[in-house]
C-alpha cells in the first residue's frame, strides 16, 4: 500500500476517523491492528518474522531491565545521570555531530553490567541482527566468498548455496529501531516497556514501518500513552506536509527518474554531458524520493497526533560533509553515531583510531543501504571524505593560526576573545559559503553515482567517462526535449522552494496565505500529483529496497 495510492487514502481517512472517535485507552489497539494490516499489504509472508522479533526483544528487554545494574561509584556520577537529558537536548537542537557526545561514551565505560543482562542483550541482538543478516546479506557474503575463493581455485565446480527469498519490507528500519531499544535499556537510558501491545506498536507503527524515520523508544513510546484530541492546526499542518511529500516524490522524483534510469541502465551508450546530467538529476531524485517519503510519514503521523523525528534538513545546502550528515537521513546517521561510532570510541581516541572509527561507521552505513559493493564503495567514499575534511580543517586551523601570529596586537586580542575578524569576514561571505556548498554538493553528487549504478563496473564507467566528449551521437537527446525541459523546470522549482525554506518551511508559508491562495495551492498540488500518477512512469520508493 503506497502512500500515493487510492487504497492508502481510504485506509488513512478511515483510520484517522476511527482513531479520534475511539476513547484513548483503545487507540493503541486500533493502531496496532492497522499497522499489522499495513505490513501485511506489503509483505504478508513475513508478519510472523516481525511478531517473533517483537516477542524476543520485548522479553529480553524486560529481562535486561529486571536485573539491577550495579554501577561503580564513579567520581562524576552527576554526568551519568545527565546522559539522557543531554542527548535529548542535543537531538532537539539538531546537534548530531559524530565528534561530540563524549559524555555518553564516558558514562558507558563507567557502568558495570552483570553477566545476565549481557546474555539477554546478546540474545536480542543475535536474533534481530541475525534475521537482518540472513535475509539481506547472506547471499551477498556467500556469493562474494565464492567469488574470491574461485580466484584461489577453491570450491571449484560448486555453486554458491544461495537462498531465493524476498527481503522482508522495512527489515533494516525496524531492526535498527529494535536494536536501539535493547541497547538503550541495557545502558539504562530508558526503562523497559512492560506492555507488550505498546511495545509491538513501537516496532510496527505504520507511518514509519517500511522506510523510517528510525524512531527511538524514548521518543515514540510516551506518545502512545499521551492522551491527545483532534487538533485542527496539527492535522492541517500534517496534511500539507503529506501533499508536499507527494509532490516531491510523484511529481519531481518520478519525473527525473525517466532520464536517470535511461542513462544509468544503459550507461555504456553515453559519454560526457548525459552522464553528468543523469548524476545531477539522481542527486535531486533521491532527495525528493526519500525526503518526500519521510514528509508523508511524518505528515500522516502528525494528523493523528504523533510527532516523528525530522529526517532531512535541506542537506544540499550543507557547508561541509560533516554538516551534510547532520542534515541527511538524520534518524539513521544519529543511530550510527550513538550505536556504532561512539561505542567504538568516537573522536575521543588517538587520531588514527578516530579516522578508523569514522571510516568503519560509513562503510557499515553503506552496507546497511544494500548488499552490494556499490553501496559499500559509496559508504567508504563518504568515510574518506570526512577523514580528508577533518585533516584539511586541522591544516587550515593551524595555517590560520600561524598567519595571525604574524599579525598585530589587535588580532591577538581578537584571537584571545575567540574571534578572528578577518576570518569571520571571509567565512561569512556569500561567495565563500557558496563555494563550500558547491564543493560539498559536488562530492556528494560524485558518491551518489556509486549508490545508483547497477554495478561497480558501471559506476567506474560513468565516473571515467562523464568528463569525456565524443561517443556516437553525443547530441542525441536522452528523453524527449519536452520531458527534459519539464525535468529542468522541476529542479528549478525545487531549488526555489528549498531556498525559501531556509526562512520558513513550505507548509508554514502556505498556512500563512489567505484562504483562496491556500486552496488554489492545495488544488494545484493535488492535480499535479494526480496527473503525474496517471500519465507518469510509476517508480518504487528508492529506500523501500533497504
Amino acid at each position, binding site marked *: 500500500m503506497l502512500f500515493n*495510492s487510492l487504497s492508502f487514502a481510504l485506509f488513512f481517512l478511515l483510520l484517522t476517523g476511527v482513531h479520534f472517535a475511539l476513547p484513548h485507552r483503545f487507540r493503541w489497539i486500533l493502531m496496532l491492528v492497522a499497522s499489522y494490516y499495513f505490513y501485511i499489504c506489503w509483505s504478508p509472508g513475513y508478519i510472523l518474522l516481525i511478531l517473533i522479533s517483537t516477542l524476543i526483544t520485548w522479553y529480553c528487554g524486560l529481562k535486561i531491565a529486571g536485573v539491577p545494574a550495579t554501577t561503580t561509584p564513579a567520581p562524576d556520577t552527576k554526568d551519568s545521570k545527565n546522559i539522557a537529558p543531554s542527548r535529548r537536548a542535543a537531538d532537539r537542537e539538531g546537534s548530531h555531530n559524530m565528534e561530540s557526545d563524549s559524555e555518553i561514551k564516558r558514562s558507558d565505560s563507567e557502568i558495570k553490567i552483570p553477566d545476565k543482562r549481557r546474555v539477554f542483550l546478546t540474545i536480542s541482538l543475535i536474533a534481530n541482527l541475525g534475521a537482518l543478516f540472513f535475509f539481506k546479506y547472506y547471499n551477498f557474503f556467500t556469493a562474494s566468498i565464492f567469488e574470491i575463493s574461485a580466484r584461489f581455485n577453491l570450491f571449484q565446480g560448486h555453486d554458491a548455496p544461495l537462498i531465493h527469498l524476498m527481503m522482508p519490507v522495512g527489515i533494516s528500519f525496524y531492526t535498527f529501531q529494535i536494536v536501539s531499544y535493547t541497547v538503550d535499556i541495557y545502558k539504562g537510558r530508558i526503562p523497559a516497556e512492560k506492555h507488550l501491545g505498546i511495545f509491538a506498536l513501537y516496532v510496527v507503527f505504520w507511518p514509519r514501518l517500511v522506510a523510517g524515520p528510525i524512531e527511538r523508544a524514548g521518543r515514540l513510546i510516551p506518545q502512545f500513552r499521551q492522551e491527545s484530541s*483532534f487538533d*485542527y492546526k496539527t492535522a*492541517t499542518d500534517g496534511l500539507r506536509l503529506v501533499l508536499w511529500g507527494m509532490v516531491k516524490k510523484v511529481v519531481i522524483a518520478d519525473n527525473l527518474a525517466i532520464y536517470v534510469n535511461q542513462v544509468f541502465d544503459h550507461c555504456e551508450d553515453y559519454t560526457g554531458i548525459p552522464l553528468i546530467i543523469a548524476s545531477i538529476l539522481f542527486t535531486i531524485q533521491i532527495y525528493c524520493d526519500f525526503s518526500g517519503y519521510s514528509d508523508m510519514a511524518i505528515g500522516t503521523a502528525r494528523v493523528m497526533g504523533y510527532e516523528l523525528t525530522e529526517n532531512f534538513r535541506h542537506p544540499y545546502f550543507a557547508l561541509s560533509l560533516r554538516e551534510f550528515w547532520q542534515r541527511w537521513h538524520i534518524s539513521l546517521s544519529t543511530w550510527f553515531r550513538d550505536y556504532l561510532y561512539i561505542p567504538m570510541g568516537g573522536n575521543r581516541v588517538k587520531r588514527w583510531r578516530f579516522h578508523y572509527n569514522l571510516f568503519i561507521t560509513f562503510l557499515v552505513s553503506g552496507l546497511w543501504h544494500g548488499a552490494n559493493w556499490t553501496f559499500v564503495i559509496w559508504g567508504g567514499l563518504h568515510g574518506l571524505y570526512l577523514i580528508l575534511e577533518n585533516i584539511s580543517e586541522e591544516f587550515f586551523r593551524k595555517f590560520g593560526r600561524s598567519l595571525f601570529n604574524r599579525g598585530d596586537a589587535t588580532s591577538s586580542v581578537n584571537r584571545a576573545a575567540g574571534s578572528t575578524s578577518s576570518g569571520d569576514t571571509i567565512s561569512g561571505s556569500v561567495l565563500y559559503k557558496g563555494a563550500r556548498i558547491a564543493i560539498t554538493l559536488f562530492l556528494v553528487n560524485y558518491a551518489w553515482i556509486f549508490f545508483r549504478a547497477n554495478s561497480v563496473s558501471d559506476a567506474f564507467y560513468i565516473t571515467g567517462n562523464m568528463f569525456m566528449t565524443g561517443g556516437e551521437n553525443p547530441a542525441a537527446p536522452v528523453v524527449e526535449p519536452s520531458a527534459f525541459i519539464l525535468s529542468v523546470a522541476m529542479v528549478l522549482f525545487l531549488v526555489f522552494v528549498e531556498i525559501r525554506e531556509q526562512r520558513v518551511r513550505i507548509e508554514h508559508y502556505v498556512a500563512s496565505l489567505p484562504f483562496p491562495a491556500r*486552496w488554489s495551492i492545495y*488544488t494545484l498540488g*493535488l*492535480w499535479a500529483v494526480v496527473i503525474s500518477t*496517471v*500519465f507518469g512512469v510509476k517508480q518504487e520508493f528508492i529506500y523501500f529496497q533497504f
Partner: protein
Amino acid sequence: MQSKKFISRLILFSILNVAIMVTLLSFFSGRNRDIHLENWETESNLLVTGENQHYDLAILGTSRGRVFSRDSNHLTVEKLLGKKVINLSKGGGGGLMPAMVHLNHFYRRGNSVDQIIYFVDPWIFFCPINNENNTFFLRDEPFELSILRDLVVNSFPSQQIISYLQMIAVDDWKSISRYAAPGLDRLTLKAIDPVKLEEARNHYLGLYNYDKFDHYSKFVSEINMVAKKNRSKISYVMLPILMRDFPGAKEVDKKLKEISRSEGVGYYNLIDKMQERKFFYDHMHFNNKGISYFTQTYLEPILQLTQLP
C-alpha cells in the same frame, strides 16, 4: 468543534476537486468520435463503432475472434454471409469482462444489431489476465467517460483504470491503432509440436484461477441481459482448437449448456471440429483459409438457426 470544521472543509475540498475532475473528464470524453476506421484497418473497437448504425452481426471474442477481421478477412466474412458485420473482439486476450464493456458502449452509442456471436475460449472463464487484469482491451481505444464509469462500476483494478485514462494523452489515433502484424493469418501451421502444445497448456494452467469461474460466468448472464434488452439474439460458439482436451473446456461446456437452457440463448461446442493444420497459423488461430471454411460450414448455418423470427 475542531473536527467538525476539519470534516466540513475536507468535504468541501473533495466536492471542489470531484467537480474539477468531472469537468476535465467530460472535456476529454469522445473527442475522437470524428475519426472513423474500418474493422480490417484497426484493432480498435471505438474508432469503428459509429453512432445510430444497424448491423446484422456483431462478433465478440478474444484474438481468435479478432482474426475474423484482420487484414481482409472482415470483407470475406461479410461477403460470404451477405451481412453487415461489426467485430467487437479484442486481441490480447480480452475476455468476458472486456466484452461486456465494449458491448455496452456499442449500444450506448445508439447502435443496434440483430445477432451476436460470442466466440468463447475456455481460459476466459478462469483467467484474471483475460478479464479485470487485461491490459490490452483498452489500449487502442479513445477516452469515453461512459467506459470509465463501466470500469469503476465493475471494480476493474486501478491500474487498468489508470491505463485507460492515459488514452487521453494519445493524439495520433489514426496510426497508433493499426493492426501490428498484417499477413500473419495467411500463414499455415507447418507442424504441431507436442512440446510447444504442452508448453501452451501449462502456460494457461499457470494463469488459471478456478475460484473465479463462477464470478466470470455471471458475466455471460449479464451480457445476455444487455443483448436481450437491446433486442439482439446472442449465441455462444466454442471455436475449434488443436488441443481438444484444453484445460477447463469441459467445465465451460457444462456451464454454457446450462445457461443456454435457462436463458434461452444459443450455444455450439465446436472445439473438436476442423482438426487440420491447414486451417490454422498456430495451434489456436485460424488462417484465412480456416476463416472462410468456418464461416461457410459453421457460422452461416448457426446464424440461420438462431436468426430472429
